[in-house]
């Protein structure tokens, strides 16, 4: 049990430091940094004290705190994935418009030069 706690705690800290480093190098937009930072802050105490959620999970009828964490994690990751798909769709629409603008501008430039 102690070994497991060490493992989860180290993983949590590793993830937090990766996020910090990405933000520091300006590779990660602030909004995502905040999101993942919050996740880290919630997850690390749970990693160190897995029993923390036991009272809450018992209150809502989940057998153990660990299952509750797993369930919440899956839901959370799903929502994040959906958000990212949405974000990519929007970006594609934006780059599409830019590509069109570029093509139109170059065509017009050529027409002007040709005259």
């Amino acid at each position, binding site marked *: 049990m102690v070994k497991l706690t060490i493992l989860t705690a180290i993983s949590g800290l590793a993830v937090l430091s990766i996020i910090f480093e990405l933000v520091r190098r300006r590779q990660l937009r602030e909004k995502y940094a905040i999101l993942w930072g919050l996740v880290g802050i919630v997850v690390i105490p749970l990693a160190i004290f897995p029993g923390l959620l036991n009272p809450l999970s018992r209150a809502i009828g989940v057998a153990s705190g660990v299952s509750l964490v797993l369930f919440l994690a899956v839901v959370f990751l799903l929502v994040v994935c959906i958000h990212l798909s949405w974000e990519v769709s929007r970006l594609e629409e934006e780059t*599409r418009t830019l*590509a*069109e603008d570029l093509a139109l501008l*170059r*065509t017009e430039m050529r027409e002007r030069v040709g005259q």
Partner: protein
Amino acid sequence: MINGKRVLIVIPAWNEQASVADVVREVRGELPGVGVLVVDDGSKDRTSDMARDAGATVARLPYNLGVGGAMRLGYRYGYEHDYDVVIQVDADGQHDPRYVPKLVDALDDADFVIGARFAGEGDYTVHGPRKWAMTMLSAALSRMNHAKLSDTTSGFRAANRRTIELFAFWYPVEYLGDTIEVLVRLVRNGYRLAQVPVTMRQRQAGTPSHSPVKSTVYLARAALIFALSMVRK
């Protein structure tokens, strides 16, 4: 000028260096006085050069967007240059420009006209799942349109100013969106659709973008796009 209207022919082309020049020359020969815009969709070959040498205006997209992406660019060009009519003609030589005046005339009573293969003229046939998809689509769209549309996937199409104004800003880029979703949106928004029977020729060079293997997938995707376009805003 055709029938007193300023007409722009938009030719979406992707790696069509072998046929695009002939298509441009034929269009310009048959239809003097129309604008010809080739939208080169990030081709890896000499499509742009061939089209330009043949006398077309060329707009080159920096990367491949698909037919829908190329066509929105074409409609935007038509919109910004005040054309009355924009007509899509494929770069592979399958569409005969001699039908163009007929399409333009049909725009007198419609906002969007399709050059249709199954409407009596010609002997174009397809088989299997692709055929089922096409049959169901044309049945559904004909009902919604209150007038027959027998070839919903034809790429030979004419748009009037009202439709150009829509397509310059909204034209789906997804696979099949450019054929199916476009028609559903037009019909749902009260645009009048009509068709003119045409004969299509064999592709002059290169390979068609759909292989027979893909035709079952085609059916599924066509159904999905159709269902989506019925509920999309």
